[in-house]
């Protein structure tokens, strides 16, 4: 973690140069869904490696290691997305033929969006960059209250969209 952008070091949000170090190449992105771990700081945390059943998140030597994804073994199953305490993992799928791609993201606000909802799709600074359509919302007991939301966005936005604004953020249920 010797090099990082000004914005990352000051405010914790990565810039293009930081992301360039972790993004899979275009060829891999075209082949199918893949996990992108936006974790740039050597904090003591390793549940992601434990979550992956395919060994696609390389085992840690030290608990403060940065996670590394082996894109050849990752199938984009998203099990790691809901296990990351930092909510820093996303699964991007731009493998389809059409103009659209999907982003799977962790979501811990209520009310939950519903499939079919039209939502604001937000970048890493919370700015709306386009509209998104909710494709799926999964929250089984095993996810321990973190929902996995799949949102469809134009494919060129799939590496930019990292959040959604669904409702007012108020609690509507337990």
């Amino acid at each position, binding site marked *: *973690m010797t090099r990082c952008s000004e914005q*990352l*070091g*000051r*405010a*914790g*949000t*990565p810039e293009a140069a930081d992301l360039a170090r972790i993004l899979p190449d275009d060829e891999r992105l075209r082949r199918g869904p893949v996990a992108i771990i*936006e*974790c*740039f*700081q*050597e*904090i*003591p*945390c*390793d*549940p992601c490696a*434990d*979550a992956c059943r395919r060994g696609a998140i390389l085992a840690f030597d*030290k*608990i*403060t290691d940065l996670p590394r994804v082996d894109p050849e073994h990752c199938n984009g199953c998203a099990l790691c997305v809901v*296990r990351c*305490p*930092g*909510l*820093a993992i996303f699964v991007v799928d731009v493998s389809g033929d059409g103009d659209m791609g999907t982003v799977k993201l962790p979501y*811990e*606000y*209520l009310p939950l969006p519903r499939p079919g909802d039209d939502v604001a799709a*937000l970048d*890493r*600074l*919370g*700015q709306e960059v386009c509209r998104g359509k909710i494709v799926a919302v999964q929250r089984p007991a095993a996810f*321990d*209250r*973190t929902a996995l939301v799949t949102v469809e966005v134009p494919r060129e936005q799939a590496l930019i969209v*990292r*959040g959604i*604004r669904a409702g*007012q*953020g*108020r*609690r509507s249920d337990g």
Partner: protein
Amino acid sequence: MTGTATAPLVEAAIIGGGPAGLCAALELARAGIRCLVVDRQHVLGGQLIKQTHRFFGSRSERAGQRGFEIGKQLAAELLQHDGVTVWLEGTAVGYYAEDRTLLVERDGALCRVHVEALILATGAAERALAFAGNDLPGVYGAGAVQTLMNVYGVRPGERAVMIGAGNIGLIVAYQLIQAGVEVAAVLEAAPAVGGYWVHAAKLARAGVPIMTSHSIVAALGTDQVTGVRATKLDAKWQPVQGSQFEVPCDLVCLAVGLSPLTELATLAGCQLAYVPELGGYVPWHDEEMQTTVPGVFVAGDAAGVEEASSAMIEGTLAGLAVVNYLRPHSQYAASRKRAAAQLAALRAGPTAERIRAGLLKLSDHRPRLAGTGGEGK
């Protein structure tokens, strides 16, 4: 549970039923040592009871689980053991090292408990900040806000400004959004966020501006907070003239650090050391968490402010040390080594640099004469 003012026959007492105290008590209970856990709250768990986020760390520190679940599990596991007495809504008000007597106030009565060993796991208190209007209704410590929301289900306001971008500030700001409160801004006096970047990134995605090199000048309003006046700070942390601006809000949350709670350690005669990296005055302690008073140990934030995962392992270390203190046994070295290695791993990264510096400083403060106690403040 033991009745009012009846002293239980125990060998050790643990003051504080948070992450450190619970883990310490578990080690004693597993070794079959009768012990008393005293906590001033009505429920065990300490700060864990309001931690709704998933914990960092590794599986051995229950990483990935939410803090309040960890607290419940530790408490349930502890209560399964015979020989554990828990006094809730009790306050340890003194300890007399000469005759190893602990005084606990509970149900309006004062109870005297003789113990062979004492573990201080009293935690830490939130710091305040001096600014105009800091006594207005609507100015809270972040911990209080977290308790209101996550323990009692009370939404503390409509629009908040968080002061401090350490882990507590960042996490509580996120939990405010979860509770339906708009977070107008996070102000941080330092030039960079102090908490984990992933916590800051989560807030940024939610559209919360994280304003580094900024501080609060005043809370505005007459009967309650109606906003804050903020200023930009220069490289020397001095206000930049003409940079003041106002942010409307009805809630100001202070997350500007914690100070170890050392009153009981002082009463017990433990020598304190001033180590800013650990949160200020801390009871001097050795690698086994023993203070300068023989038989008095310390663990968790009371020994130096850190993350809850570190507090749990420190509790384990103190518990193991007390077991060995009371019943020296051959497996102690191996169990201690295991826990110490876990703790060292947690403290290995760049985010724990300050803690490592503080611990180094603490060891430099090693008192020449152990056990004399009574150092003035």
